Structure formats: C-alpha cells, structure tokens
C-alpha cells in the first residue's frame, strides 16, 4: 500500500543500479534533504541547532567514516577519536600557519592528514585481525592523546593545551550563526554521504566487503589485501578527520585533546554497532541514538516526574538516564544484532508487501 510498485518497470541498467531504485524511496529521501536544508532552518530554534543538530551531523559524518572501516572492511578500530583529533589539530595548524588559507581548505587538508596518519596506523591490520587489531588501534588513540597534550608545537604553544579559532569563512560567507553552521555541516555531510554510498557500491567497496567476509577467499580471487585494507583505513580516516576538524572549528570553536578522548572512540564504535554495520543509514541512526537519546531522556524525565507530582532531583535524573540508556542498548542488540538500520530495512520490506507481509 505504501510502496505500490505496480507499473514501475526498470528498462535500463542505469535505472536498475541507481542508489534508490524505488521511486518512493528516492522521493522520500529527496524530500528529507530539501526539508533539512529549507524546512529545518525555518522551524528550529538555536538550542536545537547548537545542542543537538550540529553535533548530530558531525558525529554522523564521523560514524560514517568508522562504518567504512568497521562495517564495510571488517577492521575493528578503537582509534577513531584519535583520527578526529588529528583532523582537528591538523586543520588548526594549516589555518594558523599558512596565511590566507581558506577554512574549507584547512578542513579538507586536516582530513587528508588524518588519512595519511590512518594509513600508517592501518599497517598492523595487514598482520593482525579482529580483537587484536582493535587493541593495536588503541595505540593510535594513546599516542595522539599524548602528542597533543605534550608536544607544544601542535597547539601553537598554548599554555593549557587548548586552542581556538575564529569564525570560519567560505568564500564570502562568514559562518557564525547556528543556522550557518548547521547548513555548512549539512552540506558537507550530504556530499560525503553520497561519496561514501558510491564508494561502497563500486569496485573498491566490493573489495572491502570481500576482505570483510573472508580475506583468504578474497585474496584467491585476486584482491590485494594490502591495497583494500589500507584504502579503507585512508578513506575512513579522511571522513573521521574531516568530522574532527568540523567538531573543533565549527561546533566547539575552542577545544582541547579531551574533546577527542577514548570515550569518543568508543562512542563512535557504538554508533556503528547499534546503528548498523555495513549500512550507510546505520551511521545516522547510530549517531541519533547516541547523541539525541540521552539529552531527550534528560529532558523528559523531569516532565514525566512532574506528571506524577514528583520533584525529581538532577542527580536522580542523571542516574535514571544512564540506566535507561544502557537498557535500551541491550534491548536493541538483543532484538536486532545487526543494528537499527536492519530494523529499518526489515520494516521497509514489510511495507512493500503490506498488507500481506510474510
């Protein structure tokens, strides 16, 4: 009923291979993007922009990067926070040390630096796998945490290790209001998501997935594991690095290494696991789950308490928030170990067959 596909015929390979093969999906996504660009800036207030939507967009981008590595290439990483930090600090250094450097250029160069660092820290993946690799990537986290805290050159000799940048500009557009920042991040996210979707559908993405599913078999059919794994590390770190640069320069404006701590790495990995490994949409679901849900719970609980005439203290709210959040993670992992993205696609399949799903 919702997906009536009667009369839709694919008459060319092109139409069969497009990203959203079903017109309903295509229109819905287009409408969503248009709404995100036009509707949300008209409707939403500053709080939602600064506290929820901008962090959500940037962390979605980072989760997308982690998903390429973990979900598509099967290389577990616990160093995502470090690559975010590399992106942020590299972008900062490009911006202040090269006069006349445009902000967008600095952000992209920050991403490229992170990609280079990602290749270096991806080298162990050629020899170790699975949990062992996760532990090896932890080295990246600890190394860069240490470097940005101790090596003064990276932070331009700041006394406390924290750095700050001025409002960034894109050509003549000074990005300083929350709406500007939101649109800027959204633009980057849309372009990068499209790139990611096409990468994973293409030859390189198939190589990654072959490596993920069984690397010996992949080698036998002629896929070079070194090339496939290191490109996955590079592309993933590029995404994560750009997200880190945005997090520092657009969202925070002034940051310290603690903004990219080990907690951040775990957070990104959980986003991918809960959202859905090996699904682009999963990155968005995961980011929404991790970013928005705690804040939502934190705001809802006092209201719920108010309904029953209870004065809820902030300490209690915070405890209950953590408990419910933890319980929901367990619930989702039991109900659908493949993540929210799988729930979504199952739901969609059912809608296509509705009213007689089987």
């Amino acid at each position, binding site marked *: 009923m*919702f997906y009536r596909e009667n009369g839709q015929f694919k008459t060319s390979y092109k139409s069969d291979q497009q990203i959203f093969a079903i017109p309903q999906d295509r229109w819905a996504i287009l409408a969503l993007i248009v709404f995100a660009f036009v509707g949300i800036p008209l409707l939403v207030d500053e709080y939602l922009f600064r506290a929820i939507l901008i962090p959500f967009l940037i962390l979605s981008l980072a989760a997308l990067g982690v998903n390429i590595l973990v979900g598509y290439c099967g290389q577990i990483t616990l160093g995502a926070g470090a690559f975010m930090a590399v992106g942020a600090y590299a972008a900062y250094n490009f911006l202040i040390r090269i006069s006349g450097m445009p902000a967008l250029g600095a952000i992209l160069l920050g991403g490229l630096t992170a990609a280079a660092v990602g290749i270096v820290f991806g080298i162990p993946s050629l020899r170790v796998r699975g949990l062992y690799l996760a532990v090896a990537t932890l080295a990246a986290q600890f190394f860069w945490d240490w470097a940005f805290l101790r090596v003064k050159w990276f932070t331009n000799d700041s006394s406390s290790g924290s750095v700050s940048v001025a409002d960034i500009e894109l050509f003549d557009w000074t990005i300083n209001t929350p709406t500007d920042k939101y649109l800027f991040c959204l633009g980057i996210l849309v372009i990068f998501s499209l790139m990611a979707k096409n990468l994973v559908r293409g030859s390189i993405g198939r190589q990654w997935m072959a490596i993920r599913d069984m690397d010996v078999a992949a080698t036998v059919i002629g896929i070079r594991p070194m090339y496939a794994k290191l490109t996955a590390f590079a592309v993933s770190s590029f995404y994560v690095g750009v997200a880190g640069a945005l997090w520092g320069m657009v969202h925070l404006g002034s940051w310290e290494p603690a903004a990219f701590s080990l907690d951040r790495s775990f957070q990104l990995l959980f986003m991918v696991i809960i959202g859905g490994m090996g699904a682009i949409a999963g990155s968005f679901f995961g980011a929404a789950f991790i970013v928005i849900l705690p804040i939502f719970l934190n705001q809802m609980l006092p209201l719920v308490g108010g309904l029953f005439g209870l004065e809820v203290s902030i300490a209690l709210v915070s405890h209950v928030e953590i408990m419910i959040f933890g319980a929901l993670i367990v619930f989702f992992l039991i109900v659908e170990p493949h993540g929210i993205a799988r729930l979504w696609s199952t739901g969609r399949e059912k809608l296509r067959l509705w009213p007689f799903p089987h």
Partner: protein
Amino acid sequence: MHISKLAGAIAVIGLSAALTAPAALAQAAKAPAKAAAAQPQFFPVLAYRTGAYAPNGAPWANGFVDYMKLTNARGGVNGVQLLWEECETGYATDRGVECYERLKGKHGGATAVQPLSTGITFALTEKAPVDKIPVITAGYGRSESQNGAVFGWNFPLVGTYWMGADVLVQHIAKKEGGFDKLKGKKIALVYHDSPYGKEPIALLQERGKMHGFEVQLLPVAHPGVEQKATWLQIRQSKPDYVFLWGWGVMNSTSIKEAQATGYPREKMYGVWWSGAEPDVKDVGDGAKGYNALAMQHGAEPNAKVIKEVLEKVHAKGQGTGPKEEVGQVLYMRGLISAMLQVEGVRAAQGRYGKGKWVTGEQMRWGLENINLDQKALDALGFAGVMRPVQTSCLDHMGSAWARVHTWDGKKWNFTSDWYQGDEKVLRPMVMLASAKYAEEKKLKPRTPEDCKK
C-alpha cells in the same frame, strides 16, 4: 504514485511536528513574566551531583543555591527576586554546553552563568560574546581572561590559577627564607590532566626560570584514581615540595598515595580546589599537616551569613543538601560565587535603575564595577570571611587575596598571612596570553571608551 507522495507528505509533516514541538515548548518557556515590573533574574546552575567529581561539585552547588534562597528571603535585590534551574553536567564539557544552551534563553534570558569547570569555561568563552551572557568563574577558568579588554565576558573573580600558583611559590619562598633560597629546589606539580590542571604550569615555569627551581610535571589522567606510577616517580625524585592540582576523587587519592609512599604531607600544597573537607575527611589523620590554598575564605561555620542561612533557609526546611555541610569550604565557595553574582546585579541596578530587571549586558557592567568594601561585606554577613573586592573593566579578577590553611586531622586552620599575586609576574603573562588569543580569534580589544558604554 499518489499514495507515495501522500506518504512523503505525511513523513515531512510528522518530522516537522516532531522537530517543532520542542522549539514551541522552548518558546513558551521564554514568553512568561514579561508583564510585572520585578521580573525575576534567572541564573542557570550548571551543577554536577553525579560522577567522579560529585563529592566536590555537590557542596558547591548547595552553597550556591542556598545563597540565592537567602537573597530571596532577604527580599531579593532591591525587590527583584532570583530564579534558577539546575542542570546536571557531570563535569563533561559537551553536556555542560548542552545545559547552557538549554537554559540560557529561559525566563527572559540568563543573567550570568557559572560553569564550575575549566573545560566548560573554555567552550562557553566562545559563546558568551554572541549570547551576551557573562561567564563568572570565581577561582577557576582561564587565567588570561583576567584581561577584560580581550575577554569581555569572562569574570575569573577573586582568583585565577596563575595567581594561586604564584601565592604558593611566595609562601614556600617565605618558609625557606627568601626567593634566593629556592635556587636548586625541586617542585613537583601533580595535576589533573585537563585544561584545569595545566593552567598553573606556565606560571610555575616562569617563576622557576626567575628563581632557578626545577618544576617536575606529573599529569594524572581523569578521573585520578590511578596514581601509583606518579607517586613512585615522586619517591624516586624526592621533590622538595609537591603542589597538587586535583579535583574530586583525585585529591583524596593523592593524599592516600602520599601517605603510602611516605611523602610528608607538610610539604604538600593543594590549590583551593584541593583543600576541602571531602578531600581529607576519608584520610583523616593521614592527611594531618596537608596544606592547601584558601581563596579568601576557608571553612567558615561561624560566619554571620552562615548563621543567617541556617536560620532563614535551613530552619524552614528549604535547605539544599545536608545541614552539617553548611559552612564547609566548598559550600562557602559556592556561597561566595553566588554572592558575587548577586552583588553584580546590585551594581548593575545602581546604574540602570533600582528594582529593575537587568539584562546580560547590564550585568556585565555591574560585574565590572563591583565595589565591595569592608562595610558592604559586613552588612552582607561576610565579616572575616573575605577581604574587599573591587573590579574594573580591564581587570576582571578584581582584588585577589589568598591564605594557606592546614588540616589538623579534624578541621582546617589558617596557617599563613594574606597573600596577593605578584602583579610584576602576572601582568605580563596575562597580557601576552590574552593578546595571543585576540590574534587567533581576530578580536579587537576594548578601549577605555568602550568600557564606559
């Protein structure tokens, strides 16, 4: 196709409804209480009552809220009542920023905000000039924000970490018998590895260069319960003094480790955030002899204002937190932080109209023109608790005084005279660091003319 479009439209409407509902709620919250003349002043309270730093965060918040309750019981500020709302940050920067964004627009707009976290202060420093809400960081925050010309909206009232570290160096120099005696000495700084803990490093290194003492830096990772390696290093290098820049559980862990390694507690000096009851209580006798800075006040259970709080707030069952903690060090810190912001409102009302609601911008003027002389302090019940404070547009710290107090196993006792930071050392550092910040942010420092506005 028709149905699909319909489905799309429904999805869009649903989404927009979902997104606008919270916005509408926020709008509704902004609207009320415009009519009456004496609209209450709203203060967000960014507290942390959970997590590793709760033992220290909670008493601060209790004192902070109790003083606002007391002010309301005293009849407000020239009749203007105070209003506040707590939000739990857990000492995490991103949650703190979220709390700030959530609360800043409520009830006509926040008058001032006090984050009680150096990390959150760094983040809010970027937002305050846009939102025009002063950020008060009494005794913490970034030290260079003392320069009001560059940091127009930051108020590290009554003390910065550079000033605190300077006072500690002065104190040990006095103990040793002069600054020249510091030559060749070794001071270890055990610090929380965050912007907070790193603040004093610049000053200690500067002082170290001046007097020829060596500074050994020993970072401790959040939350600070794992310090075995740190204290092993101290046992090996045997520093002459240990300065402690810790917070929350890290403080008591440090003192316990000092006890375990046999480092004399008499040679340990904490900053004012490492010198309160929760830090030493559990160690008890083991902490005997441990020293810490007292930013103006120490534990003041006999102060007049504390008696008033007990009588007008706690006796009526309105108290925040346990009654036994009223008057303790961190409770007093919260109380004084609240008092300074209340006096900021009063100063602003003095210029913009008594009994009127003040905006964030007017509040800034008020905070820049705080003039609490001894008479005013006595009237507020702070006699003997703190010394007079005067701020100006260019000096956002104001007159800063500190003492050293020592734990005797049961309570804190003052063991030194009053000190002040050495302006000859501090001023150039503040100017240099703030000029660098202005350059990075492409800011134009305020001129004395701007200050008059």
